[in-house]
């Protein structure tokens, strides 16, 4: 589904964000991309939805050479790749329903498809009852669920999440991870960049670790800190103070 070969990304200011990345992600996988801030997690995701082109190497997404894709074809790639961000990127003057519908409307969907598609994803993310509310009337978790609904409404094959729980408390974090897990069970490939140790360690899925733009660990059913790697990172300790409630245990129950 996703394949990177010899990918290097150097920004115009000389920063080497990615350095010789080789990576294969199978269809339907659930993968964590971990590492410190500035190690290239977001850069790697940006390559996948063609916000960025690699300086060297090839990027293939769903059989398409993304690095060679013509600008005019990029919109069609993006309809197949949903993206979710830490800051939700919702339109504050549109309701939940309108925010989700927007993704369909601006891609030229027929109103019949909008009327069918929006309630379906709002149902999936559990926001059907709040569809008329505006983003600032919602909790962070609800806002993120709206953003996920928007990313899903075009039925993408891949869902990319850049720190999706970065602004959320533990309870909401678990809700969102639970939701992403359910989405993955429906067949969508999910790739999550995060530095939330708890989430990664509880879910025990494939973990790819980036350090200074290189892959330093890649484990199936891995932990945030690779076996034999450094011990708990002090920078990430505050997150670990949160107590783990009963919601967490429901993460893998579905």
């Amino acid at each position, binding site marked *: 589904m996703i394949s990177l070969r010899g990918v290097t990304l150097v920004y115009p200011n000389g920063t080497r964000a990615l350095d010789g990345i080789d990576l294969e992600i199978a269809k339907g996988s659930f993968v964590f991309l971990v590492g410190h801030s500035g190690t290239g997690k977001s850069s790697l995701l940006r390559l996948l939805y063609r916000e960025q082109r690699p300086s060297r190497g090839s990027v293939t997404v769903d059989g398409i050479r993304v690095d060679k894709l013509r600008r005019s074809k990029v919109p069609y790639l993006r*309809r197949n790749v949903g993206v979710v961000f830490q800051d939700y990127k919702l339109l504050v003057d549109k309701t939940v329903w309108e925010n989700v519908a927007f993704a369909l409307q601006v891609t030229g969907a027929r109103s019949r498809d909008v009327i069918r598609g929006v309630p379906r994803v709002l149902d999936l993310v559990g926001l059907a009852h709040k569809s008329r509310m505006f983003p600032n009337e919602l909790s962070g978790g609800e806002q993120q669920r709206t953003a996920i609904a928007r990313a899903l409404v075009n039925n993408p094959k891949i869902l990319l999440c850049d720190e999706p729980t970065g602004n959320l408390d533990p309870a909401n974090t678990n809700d969102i991870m639970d939701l992403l897990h359910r989405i993955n069970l429906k067949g969508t490939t999910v790739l999550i960049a995060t530095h939330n140790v708890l989430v990664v360690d509880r879910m025990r899925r494939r973990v790819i670790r980036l350090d200074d733009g290189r892959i330093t660990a890649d484990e199936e059913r891995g932990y945030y800190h690779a076996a034999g790697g450094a011990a708990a990172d002090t920078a990430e300790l505050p997150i670990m103070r949160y107590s783990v409630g009963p919601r967490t245990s429901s993460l893998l129950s579905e």
Partner: protein
Amino acid sequence: MDPGRVRFFLSEVARNFSRNVIMQLTAIGTVTVTIVLLGAFLFTRETAGKIGNDVLHQVQISVFLKDTAGAADAKAIAAKLAHDRRVASVTYVPKAEGLAQMRDRLRGQIDMSLLTSNPLPDALRVRAVDTNHVDQVAAALRKMPSVAKVEYAQDAVQKLVRLSAVLGRIGLGIVALLIVTAAIIISNTIRLTVFARRREIAIMQLVGASSGYIRLPFICEGFLAGLCGAALAVALLAVARAQLLPKLALALPFVPLHDADVNAVVFALELLGVGAAVGIVASWFSVGRHLRT
């Protein structure tokens, strides 16, 4: 087309348009001023052209015949000229009539009673269809055997033609400059809208809206600004035509200020077209620059 899609699209355009009302009004005002001046310029050029043509039309070639030539020769030349397509009219002025006309013209200025004989030759007054032909007609006349002298206001004609061409070019330059100004102001207005909507544009790009789709509401916004400005200008010009033209015509009795030949509807549509085109082109560029980044 799907009515829901049309409704969504129109609501997007309306939102854009209402977001920067002040800037939008500035853009519309600039287009209005530009189009009013363009209209006034085109009208003036048309009228000036006509006046010029009238003046030039009055440039007549005076053909003086030799003393040996008689009325028959004069009539022969007149008949020959009548077939020439470059010639608008030929008038035969026998010497007696020429003297009578001169007496009339100079009455009270010179005492013509002192004249014992008629010093004037028989003459023909020839008018060319087009001022450009005056030279050729005059040259042809000079070659005729019974013609003694051919006179016409060559320099004056040429100067007039040159002056009107220069004035036309200056006017055109000013109008072009105004159109560019209007385009820049519209472009800036659109850029403000683009800036205000950068989040939405970013999200549109993220979820896979084509750049054509993203661009379209902004193009429509520019189109609307241009069209509104031009419509206002056309209205102003219509009022000016109804109110001012009769007064102007009274003030300048000898200037032929007719606009009957100008098809008002076609003229208005042309001006509207210019306004709309300026809006479209300006917004196309301002959004294009943003989408590339």
